[in-house]
């Protein structure tokens, strides 16, 4: 059953070009794993939001993104993305997850918005401790295709 190795990719983030690179890698892997167009867009956008936090807040705008294929308990395929940095960290995670809390975009959509795009999200951080954010999306078994009848 061990037909092939699971996909895993590490993307270093260093400055703004890292945002574009990480999100396009995430989209490519999501597509390779059979995610549909909308899920590809959700996943790439989530990575864009999280890596922008690194570029804006982390020391030197540096961090790392790990994108990897995972399997759920019922063997359902999924993707897990771990975004980490050694920046100032988030002192109050619950507050940062609330809609409307200001971020560098001035919209406060970053973390709560990302949570809505993904199926699971875990934030590990603390003041002065850096931040590790893990997000997951599971591929649905069958995509419903709407058919128009003229």
């Amino acid at each position, binding site marked *: 059953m061990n037909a092939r190795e699971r996909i895993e990719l590490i993307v270093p983030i260093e400055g*703004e070009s890292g945002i574009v690179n990480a999100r396009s890698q995430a989209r490519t892997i999501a597509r390779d794993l059979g995610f549909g167009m909308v899920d590809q867009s959700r996943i790439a*956008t989530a990575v864009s*939001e999280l890596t922008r936090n690194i570029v804006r807040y982390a020391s030197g705008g540096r961090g790392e993104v790990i994108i990897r294929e995972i399997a759920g308990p019922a063997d359902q395929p999924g993707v897990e993305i771990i975004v980490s940095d050694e920046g100032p960290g988030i002192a109050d995670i619950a507050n940062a997850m609330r*809609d409307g809390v200001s971020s560098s975009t001035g919209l406060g*959509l970053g973390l709560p918005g990302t949570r809505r795009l993904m199926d699971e999200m875990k934030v590990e951080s603390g003041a002065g401790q850096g931040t590790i954010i893990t997000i997951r999306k599971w591929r649905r078994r069958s995509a419903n295709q709407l058919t128009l009848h003229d």
Partner: protein
Amino acid sequence: MPRVPVIRVGNVLIASVQEDVNDREATDLQDELLQLLERTGAMGVILDVSLLQLIDSFLGRMLREIAVGARLLGAQTVVVGIQPAVAVTLVELGLELTGVRTALDSEKGLRLLHRLMTHTRAGNWSGNERSRKD
């Protein structure tokens, strides 16, 4: 070389945002478009985003700021060509681009823009091309 080509057709500026535009290029586009509006006296802007497979909160905010900035310079803006997958993502992200006029494609966008430009002169605003059944 600018990653976002802007062309002028009559009194309308048309900007085609290229795939994988980065934050700097989006900010440059904002500056450039507003300067072009001032220099040309154009009354309308079409922001074509049909090549974009992704609009995150930063780019969404840029689109809105361009529209607001253009309005302050007396011009109307229509964002055209948002891909369906991008629209779903924007809604879930909580970025509904409130106050930004949209149309399905450039042709519908230009029609909406011309109507808006006419109505603005008459001091009257109208609604959204997408909601019209014509």
